[in-house]
């Protein structure tokens, strides 16, 4: 029989209490696991308990969930490891095992146990069984492994390894000074945590798990453009596959939407005048007023103030395509000082004289280095301990929320230009793949309710982040040991934080919940799925990711209930969050989730949410039945099952949440 418990199997209760009951009242402390109920995404707890106590029951539940189980044969090492209690994914192998390791927990003190290193995770299990401490860390989150203490160091637990993680925590292990255990653990960790540096491949390529949904089918650019009404009736825009072979721009997707009156030759000339060839292309079109959001990189103005007639004409065509207003607004995400400074390296911004009918607005969002530094300061104040006195001023001094505010405020300006001003907007920063992606995707989230559904949000990430070449590989440093690389930056995390702020301000407007956002961030680093690997479409197609890896959306969409917000009510209005320090909060459930004192009692709430979802389903079904009865008798008017107003009226948090 397969020993791997399929993810999402129905029968064994995932709660620690149930597991404890099954193991004869032994309390299982799931140390350092994602606080948001993510533990049931890992198969180990139920497996272990049922394996020990009730083999018959385990068999029954395994067979009852055939849908999920994988047909891939499991290697002998997998089976061996299973008997040793390491949870393994199909395709995952134990690479090393170190005994007598002490995990120095910052919150509950040192725990002695065994460390397993697989090609996917670091797994620690305490010798002590009551309470048992486990630690389950995907190797992808590791950014740095350091040796601490030398042969001469004295003092308890002063010799070992310090592991710095990308997800706001550090792990420390103490090892024996005698023997080669530290050397072996260090080498194995370095080898498997940084596969690219050590000439191995990402675990995503070895992962053999199967899901019954195919996440690679979530985004189809042609489908998405069709949904937006493109090509439009007035034939102002055309869909082109000029970039089929990534010759026009190597970091753009193959299919682009451009002004219909610009010829392929024009496109080439415009691309030549934009940094990295990232010419202005359509990102979104307003269904009613045909105003558009167009994204690109900075123009190559340089110190001498170069101009390109082709670029100017192209931008003017975009302006004209609107037909309702005479103005085009260019949003430069950077502070104006930075935009000017970029001239020195050949970049710059659209000057007044060259682009006379466009207004230029700087959005004052700082660059990747500032953001990285800000997050580093934030980590300092939240991990391992949180200092109660002067908490707010410490938080203020990290400037993290202030940066969030500028990003959100910029996106609000863009959304407002389109919705109220009926203006088209052209957005860029320097290269158009960091701040630009943040701004377009947040503005789209405000403007278009489709992106606020779970699948819509997946489309949004696929489109604005992945297809338009946000450099995930470089920003996250997937599989790369160079932890101090200046190109790393938490740009995507910052975007997800902004989304979280919006879900706080509009608790009913999003179909997904907080667990969904945390899961995305966890797998941003884990390298278990192919989704966030590499920097652009060209690389992804070269690596055949769709064929060789599982998509994160396959995993999520196969278990949608877990990520659904029970309070979701479809509302097509434009959302205007409040971007004020007064309304922004630190996302404690993400940034401080490793600290058990900050862990909110999530389980009962999650349980209640699930119950609510069932009730909601039942009520909707009943409503539908009643409507069918109504329409068959023809006696009563049709009742709409949503409170969606027919005309889109903007909504502010106050008007939505007032009770």
């Amino acid at each position, binding site marked *: 029989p397969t020993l791997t418990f399929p993810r999402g199997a129905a029968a064994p209760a995932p709660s620690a209490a149930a597991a404890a009951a099954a193991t004869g009242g032994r309390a299982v402390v799931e140390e350092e696991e994602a606080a948001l109920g993510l533990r049931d995404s890992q198969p180990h707890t139920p497996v272990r308990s049922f394996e020990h106590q009730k083999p018959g029951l385990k068999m029954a539940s395994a067979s009852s969930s055939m849908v999920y189980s994988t047909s891939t044969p499991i290697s002998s090492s997998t089976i061996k490891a299973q008997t040793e209690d390491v949870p393994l994914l199909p395709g995952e192998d134990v690479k090393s095992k170190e005994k007598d390791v002490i995990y120095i927990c910052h919150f509950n003190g040192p725990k002695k146990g065994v460390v397993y290193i697989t090609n996917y995770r670091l797994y620690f299990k305490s010798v002590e069984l009551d309470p048992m401490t486990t630690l389950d860390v995907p190797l992808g989150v590791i950014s740095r492994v350091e040796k601490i203490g030398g042969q001469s160091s004295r003092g308890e637990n002063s010799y070992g390894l310090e592991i710095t993680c990308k997800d706001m925590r550090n792990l420390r292990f103490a090892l024996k000074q005698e023997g080669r255990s530290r050397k072996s653990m260090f080498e194995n960790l370095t080898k498997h945590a940084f596969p690219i540096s050590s000439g191995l491949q990402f675990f995503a390529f070895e992962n053999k798990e199967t899901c019954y949904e195919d996440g690679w089918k979530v985004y189809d650019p042609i489908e998405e453009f069709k949904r937006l009404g493109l090509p439009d009736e007035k034939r102002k825009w055309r869909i082109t596959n000029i970039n089929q072979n990534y010759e026009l721009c190597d970091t753009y997707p193959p299919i682009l939407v451009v002004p219909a009156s610009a010829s392929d030759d024009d496109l080439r000339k415009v691309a030549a005048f934009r940094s990295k060839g990232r010419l202005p292309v359509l990102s979104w079109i307003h269904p009613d007023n045909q105003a558009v959001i167009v994204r690109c990189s900075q123009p190559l103005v340089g110190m001498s103030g170069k101009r390109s007639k082709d670029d100017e004409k192209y931008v003017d065509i975009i302006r004209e395509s609107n037909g309702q207003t005479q103005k085009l607004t260019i949003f430069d995400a950077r502070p104006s000082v930075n935009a000017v400074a970029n001239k020195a390296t050949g970049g710059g911004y659209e000057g007044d004289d060259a682009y006379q009918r466009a207004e230029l607005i700087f959005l004052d969002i700082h660059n990747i280095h500032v953001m990285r530094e800000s997050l580093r300061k934030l980590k300092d104040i939240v991990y391992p301990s949180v200092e109660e006195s002067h908490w*707010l001023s410490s938080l203020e001094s990290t400037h993290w929320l202030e940066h969030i505010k500028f990003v959100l405020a910029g996106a609000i300006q863009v959304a407002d230009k389109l919705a109220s001003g009926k203006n088209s907007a052209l957005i860029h920063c320097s290269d158009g793949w960091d701040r630009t992606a943040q701004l377009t995707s947040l503005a789209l989230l405000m403007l278009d309710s489709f992106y606020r559904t779970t699948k819509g949000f997946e489309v949004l990430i696929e489109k604005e982040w992945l297809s338009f070449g946000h450099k995930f590989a470089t920003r996250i440093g997937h599989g790369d040991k160079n932890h101090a690389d200046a190109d790393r930056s938490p740009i995507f995390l910052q975007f997800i934080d902004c989304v979280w702020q919006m879900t706080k301000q509009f608790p009913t407007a999003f179909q997904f919940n907080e667990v969904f956002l945390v899961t995305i961030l966890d797998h941003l680093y884990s390298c278990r799925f192919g989704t966030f690997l590499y920097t652009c479409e060209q690389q992804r197609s070269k690596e055949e990711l769709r064929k060789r890896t599982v998509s994160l959306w396959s995993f999520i969409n196969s278990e949608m209930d877990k990520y659904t917000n029970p309070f979701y009510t479809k509302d097509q209005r434009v959302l205007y969050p409040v971007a004020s*320090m007064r309304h922004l909060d630190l996302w404690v459930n993400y940034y401080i989730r490793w600290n058990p004192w900050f862990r909110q009692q999530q389980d009962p709430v999650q349980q209640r949410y699930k119950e609510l979802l069932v009730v909601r389903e039942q009520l909707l079904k009943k409503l539908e039945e009643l409507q069918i009865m109504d329409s068959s008798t023809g006696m009563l008017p049709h009742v709409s099952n949503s409170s969606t107003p027919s005309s889109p009226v903007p909504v502010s948090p106050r008007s939505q949440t007032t009770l």
Partner: protein
Amino acid sequence: RPGTDRDREREREREPAMMSGRPGLRSSVRAVGPGFAGSNCCLSPQSCSPGRAGPRRPSEAALLPGELVVSESSNVRKCIATDTCAHDLYGTLLCTNFKISFLTNNVTPFQKCQYRNLLLAEHDVALTCVEQVVAVNDAKKKRKVLGPTQHLKFKPTELIIYCKDFRIIRFRFDESDPESARKICLVIAHYSQPKDLRLLFGFAFAREQSQDSADGVNGPDSGWQTPLFETYSDWDREIKRTGASEWRVSSVNENYTTSTSLPEYFVVPSSLADEDLKQLAPSFNGARIPMWCWHHWTGCALVRMANIKPGMQLRKHDRRILQAIAQSHPEKSGVFKSDLDKSLPRVLEVQAALVRLKQLCIHDSFEETEEKWLSSLENTRWLEYVRLFLKHSAELTQWMYNKNISVILQGKLYIVVVNSVWNRWGLAPEFVG
């Protein structure tokens, strides 16, 4: 988890009260006893009386029984935004013995799922909510804070009302009759600062209500009622509900003969006779002898009392009290005494923090505070005090819930500001409960 079942129980108990939120004013809110937080002055949209949204004239103002219009001024402009008058509303400003009301044709469209206050309309402010009344004349650059009995020599062009609930409401009299404007300013100042608490509207309302119906002030006797803990039986029922068998209701304070600030009936350890209590009372500040608040089913109790006056008897009395409380515990276990004066901020500090918070939220300019919002908020210390109260309450809960030890809350400040101390002491039992 602590209190989960009890919370649910309480929810159930509260439900009938919510259900009775029908139009009509008898289900109005009364002060609630310990452990019964929450008010139900909101009315669901379904039960709103129709026709209230249309244009109204002063004569049509919705008045409560016993409520009278004292003064009114027409063609008054209510300022909505600070930077523009584009959204201002025109209407009639009036003052009753209960509220300041602004009647306008421009009513916010009533939205589905929105709740409406049963007693106050959108533009109404209860007089008791008013903190300061300021009359302004722009042309003469005059500005005067109006006391209860003042004259106003200039013609007011603007009236600014600062409210206790952080609102600032501005009315302009550019197009209204100057005399009526002056009069209404003075009337509002007068009625919002009564010299005697008996002039508060609640008394007039209660008189009217008791004449009006046989049901009594507190609504019809059918169904569930909020215990007010004014009677022997309310306390007795509470002892039985919580299972505090070693405790009894004492009538030693009937007619307030022992202490003027304690209720007439309260709960004490069974081992203390009324004679003992009388003997102990003089050594407590304000004669506030130990009084039971709540009981956990495992046996530990929550008790509150004043400080014992310094002197020869202090230790002896202190020991006596501790023994009596320990005796009322089924396991005769120890007692934890929490000195609130040491662990919590002083009343005046809390008040000062609120003043700073108000300054930050409503007076300081938005742009200036936005940049330094978090550190400014921290500097008010308001959140720090909230944290201390929560933290201390959580600690006491630990003593009771995890260690099954009775807790005494002891403090001395109530004599200075009785009201504030009630609030201050009221907090802890609330959380423990």
